[in-house]
């Protein structure tokens, strides 16, 4: 699983959650797109839906069982739940540990 593949999958899922929640997002979706906070198009329900869908996609498509909201995620100085880039980085770390 390459970094680019992870990022692309995360971006696709982000767009899917936005569409399914009936919202629209005009900005470009890339590594800097916020997934949390006032700047993000996600509300708290979208964020939960997104994280749960990510975990299930990682298990279904790549056969890794991960918990994204684990203790380490909570204690990092830069939260993985900031942008598409930070969550992609964290997914890469968790997957590498299981390889």
């Amino acid at each position, binding site marked *: 699983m390459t970094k680019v593949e992870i990022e692309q999958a995360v971006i696709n899922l982000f767009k899917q959650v936005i569409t399914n929640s009936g919202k629209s997002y005009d900005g470009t979706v890339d590594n800097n797109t916020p997934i949390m906070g006032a700047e993000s198009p996600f509300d708290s*329900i979208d964020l*939960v*839906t997104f994280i*749960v*869908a990510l*975990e*299930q996609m990682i*298990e279904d498509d790549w056969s890794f*069982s991960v*918990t994204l909201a684990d203790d380490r995620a909570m204690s990092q100085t830069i939260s993985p739940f900031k942008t598409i880039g930070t969550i992609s980085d964290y997914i890469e770390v968790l997957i590498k540990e299981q390889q």
Partner: protein
Amino acid sequence: MVIVITGTRKGIGKELAEYFCNAGHIVIGCSRGEKSIENVNYEHHSFDITDEKSVKLFFSQLRKNRGGLDVLINNAAVNNALAPVALVSYNAAASTMNTNFMGSFLMAREAIKLMMKNSFGRVINMGSMAVKYEEKGEAIYTASKAAVLAMTKILAKEVYQYGITCNAVSPSAIKTDLMDNIDPDALNVVLKRNAIPEMGTTKELIDTINWLISPQANKITAQNIYLGGV
């Protein structure tokens, strides 16, 4: 429906599992010990609900084999700390909190992830009348159940938008191994305070759960239902 029940090796959990299997539901049960129910609709998994890895694996298999679940009944519990606080060991308290609260939390956390995807779910947590009575010698068990009730109410608010309800049922005293160490005289005094001053049965618990999981109860959430006229 696919119904997951924790603590099905014996006691109330076993009776609930047998009832729901006979009513035609698929019941997936678990306990640390081995399977004790023979029924075509029953599947058993032996694991400890306080072990995060085992809980994750259980739900991962459930998703692959059954596509998810409709109902979670968080029934498994222990009372390892039945003594005045001054005499309760750290491990007795920790293991009671771990099973009763952390175990219920872990099971609920993973269950709602699958329920969200199906936009339907019912989480039923087991409370206790101990929370209402605040009996001496039951501080840790009571605290663990109070924690479960607090989680029930907040979780209900978090998941309602996903079509999931979350409630607690708090039975009166029912004859099981969990009651073995309770002083019968003290229990009688407590029961006399209830509108129904005798021991409860699993029957009224089943009736209540049956209603809570029915489509008619889709707007009943964040509630704790006391049985026994507490």
